[in-house]
């Protein structure tokens, strides 16, 4: 299943619908990294609210997306990690270090607009 990438102003939003296959994740990664420069976006929000399990591949891909996006000149915010998922991830040592996180999409957007304000 393909993940739709929405453009909202200077932000790209990718919403995970359900558990994704490894191939889907790879496609998402390439899509985001390409489009972030194409649309001259300043930030990417990845919404994982629908994911009730996060395996190590998905977690690693999220981290890779964040690092690649940074190299392409934008920022990434992961939003909507469920409490149980967060706990499981931490126990597996998957802490998404260096990646911004927020409670949900609204919070992520608020975080970014605050950030855009200060960097402008």
């Amino acid at each position, binding site marked *: 299943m393909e993940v739709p990438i929405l453009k909202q102003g200077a932000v790209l939003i990718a919403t995970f619908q359900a558990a994704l296959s490894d191939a889907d994740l790879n496609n998402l990664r390439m899509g985001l990294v390409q489009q972030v420069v194409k649309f001259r976006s300043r930030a990417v929000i990845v919404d994982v609210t629908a994911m009730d399990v996060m395996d190590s591949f998905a977690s690693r891909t999220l981290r890779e997306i964040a690092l690649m996006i940074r190299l392409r000149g934008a920022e990434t915010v*992961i*939003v909507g*990690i469920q*409490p*149980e*998922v*967060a*706990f499981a*991830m*931490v*126990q597996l040592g998957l*802490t*998404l270090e260096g990646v911004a*996180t*927020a*409670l949900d999409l609204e*919070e*992520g957007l608020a*975080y970014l607009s605050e950030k855009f304000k200060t960097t402008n």
Partner: protein
Amino acid sequence: MSKSESTSKDSEARSNPGVDLVRSEASSELLRELVAHLRQNRTQLREEWVVRISETRLLTAMTKEEIFAEATSIYDSYVEALETEAFEALQAYARNLSERIIPRGVETHEVVGIVLLLRDVLARSLFEKYQTDFKKLNRILDAYEPAANRIANTVAVGFVQERERVIRQQQEAIRELSTPVLQVRERLLILPIIGVIDPQRARQLTEQLLRGIRTNRAKVVVIDITGVAAMDLTVANNLVQTVEASRLLGATVIVTGLSPEIAQTLVTIGVDLGKMNTVGDLQGGIEQAERLLGYKVEKLAEPR
């Protein structure tokens, strides 16, 4: 203990003709004589015992008068137990005594110590009384020693059992104290942790906190561990995990109230606290959280 008790009782109860009966009759005869002697010299022996107790610096948590009163009742129960061999009464007394003195901070070694002292004081007085008749002394001691040892045993076991009961009760009380996740301001939670954290409780804490962050839409959490006495590697790692998991939900965690001892432990065992935001006390933590959230608390007037 119960085995020897039952056998000695059996040999008395069943009219089993033979050496056993004769011996037990002789020994209870001796015990009666012994008890009479102890009753006669009650004041002097008790005095001597109390002196020995304070000499050996036992029961330092109690005053002289308390020790004397307690010594009197222990002495009487002791003699009574020697006479009747009814250990249930002594057991009950030991439990009762323990209930009273455990909250005072009396240690196991002290209780065992004073009972053994009494045994020794009484044995000395027997030596003195029967020093001319060595055979009789031997027989008296034969009767006295097992009974005295059993008394010491009973009191010590009673004390330890009571102590364990108190410990169990306290552990349950601690476990039942659930840890509340409280909202102090919009988007600011505090989690005061009090008492011992074991892995089970740590897990419960983390889950509660993460749920609290989600339902209150918290951005900042202050975890206050002023009430945590000690922390080992596992618990410290749990704390780090809680901080990281909270961050995944978009909340910043500020840890406050690390005692010098805990700070020392954490540095010694080398827990990576680099990712942790720590502030000295709860007030400082809340102030920093308010700064993060953009609050400014102003004093409008002097308190009346």
